[in-house]
């Protein structure tokens, strides 16, 4: 009987756990370690953040699902990986520390035959003084953050109703952030909410982003075929900003936030300030603070993890300029170098480089959107690691690893621009591949599969995905038929 340990129960870790159980049954033990007791459909947090959904609509408790499926669940956080075991046992192990209130602080060493690191991001609010719920801005990165964002937004709407003009700033809180798509969604949902409340005319709404161009989304933008003409996501997105009267400040690195002033630097090296009354700025992500040790207890963290805290996998980490980036740089098996039983999937793996062109200001400040690896790609990576493990347990440890490179897989991205079954709207995009491949495609992507459209139908798609993925995550009958 093999022991499989999965660190993290987000999209990639939870997907891996469910597929492993489906493929392996009760012959092997599957243990999921997550510091959170609840699963969160993060893409819908933006609706919680404007008060259109409640927290209970986007989360559910994990323990009953795992109990029903026969998956061992530990509410704890991974602290250290011991890939060579310890002095007592050469079996690989992970050290965990319980966050379950009854066992809080208790530590345990779990042995594994296979390990999947799916720990997700550490929200690095500390990278910018004044950023985040402990500072002067709100966030929608967690359901609790989104609840707080909705409360603050209500206060701002009350002031607008009283006739006091307000400036609302939404975007990225540092030059190296990812998840611009979430900020894009939130700014248009805020705009929609203000219109619904009849107070839009008194509000200045600003999108402050590290993207050098609108529509970049951290994936270097997209080129669509629209009625026989190549259209860029920049033009298409710019149209929406103009139509809705949302101002955009591009290529910005926020370096300090005071109570009512945001300080930022732009790509030309100039420093600016922006007064604000309400700010929702996404923090930069880092890897969870996992350590790694060898059998003699020597620290090998820097061998297994990049300085960002993300785990190294089968990517080409050779430093090279943007012009020399290739699709082959991206990992496909998600196996850690030197180990055939340790995987890192979802946000936990270290990307070889950005997807968007990184830029520096004349002052040397890096303004470079980090590559998104959430949602559909995250689920596909989790399933791929599960398939590799199942193959190896069924057919022998030398079975080839399954592959799923972000330079081969596609993604659908549906960015809400306002809710309502008949009044809502969203921008729906599909891209194939996620990482552009200029060797295979002149525009970097398959033009037939890379498309963008705006409308009410895209809102319905986003709503459908909300219900479908929560159904799937609850492992209800037929869950496996819903694609990642």
């Amino acid at each position, binding site marked *: 009987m093999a022991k499989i340990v999965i660190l993290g129960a987000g999209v990639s870790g939870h997907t891996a756990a469910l597929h492993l159980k489906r493929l392996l049954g009760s012959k092997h033990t599957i243990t999921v370690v997550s510091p959170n007791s609840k699963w969160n459909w993060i893409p819908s947090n933006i609706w919680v953040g404007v008060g259109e959904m409640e927290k209970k609509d986007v989360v559910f408790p994990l323990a009953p699902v795992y109990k029903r499926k026969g998956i061992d669940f530990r509410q704890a956080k991974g602290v250290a990986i011991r890939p060579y075991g310890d002095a007592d046992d050469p079996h690989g192990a992970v050290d965990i520390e319980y966050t379950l209130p009854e066992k809080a602080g208790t530590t345990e060493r779990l042995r594994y035959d296979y390990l999947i690191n799916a720990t997700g991001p550490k929200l690095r609010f500390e990278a910018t003084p004044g950023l985040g719920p402990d500072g002067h801005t709100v966030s929608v990165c967690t359901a609790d953050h989104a609840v707080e964002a909705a409360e603050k937004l209500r206060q701002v709407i009350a002031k607008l109703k009283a006739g006091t003009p307000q400036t609302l700033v939404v975007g990225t809180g540092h030059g190296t952030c990812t998840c611009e798509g979430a900020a894009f969604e939130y700014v248009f949902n805020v705009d929609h909410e203000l219109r619904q409340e009849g107070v839009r005319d008194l509000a200045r709404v600003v999108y402050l982003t590290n993207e050098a161009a609108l529509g970049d989304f951290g994936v270097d933008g997209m080129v669509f075929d629209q009625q026989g003409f190549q259209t860029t996501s920049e033009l298409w997105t710019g149209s929406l900003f103009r139509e809705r009267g949302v101002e955009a400040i591009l290529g910005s690195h926020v370096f300090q936030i005071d109570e009512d002033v945001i300080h930022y630097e732009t790509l030309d090296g100039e420093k600016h300030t922006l007064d604000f009354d309400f700010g929702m700025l996404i923090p930069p992500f880092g890897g969870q603070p996992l350590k790694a040790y060898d059998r003699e207890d020597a620290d090998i963290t820097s061998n297994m993890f990049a300085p960002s805290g993300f785990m190294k996998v089968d990517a080409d980490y050779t430093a090279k300029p943007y012009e020399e980036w290739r699709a082959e740089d991206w990992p496909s098996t998600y196996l850690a170098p030197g180990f055939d039983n340790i995987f890192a999937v979802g946000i936990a793996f270290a990307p070889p480089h950005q997807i968007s062109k990184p830029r520096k200001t004349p002052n040397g400040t890096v303004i470079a959107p980090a590559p998104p690896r959430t949602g559909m790609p995250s689920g596909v990576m989790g399933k791929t690691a599960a398939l590799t493990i199942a193959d190896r347990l069924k057919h022998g440890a030398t079975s080839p690893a399954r592959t799923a490179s972000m330079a081969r897989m*596609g993604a659908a991205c549906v960015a809400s621009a306002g809710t309502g079954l008949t009044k809502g709207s969203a921008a729906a995009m599909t891209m194939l591949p996620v990482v552009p491949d200029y060797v295979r495609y002149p525009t970097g992507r398959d033009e037939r*599969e890379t498309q963008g459209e705006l409308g009410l139908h895209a809102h319905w798609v986003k709503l459908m995905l909300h219900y479908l993925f929560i159904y799937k995550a609850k492992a209800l009958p037929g869950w496996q038929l819903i694609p990642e």
Partner: protein
Amino acid sequence: MSETPMSPVADLSRSPLPTRKTLRRRQSLPLQFVRFIRFDLRILRMVSKAHS
């Protein structure tokens, strides 16, 4: 206090505005239903093409 030294707000005056017809089509229930089905099929096609 406002932005200094110069407001770096992006100039979107050249971005195309949708026509009234386009805005109507974006909210038209029958048309949007067709597009909803079409978009779902496109996702399925992409998944079957690139995620297997």
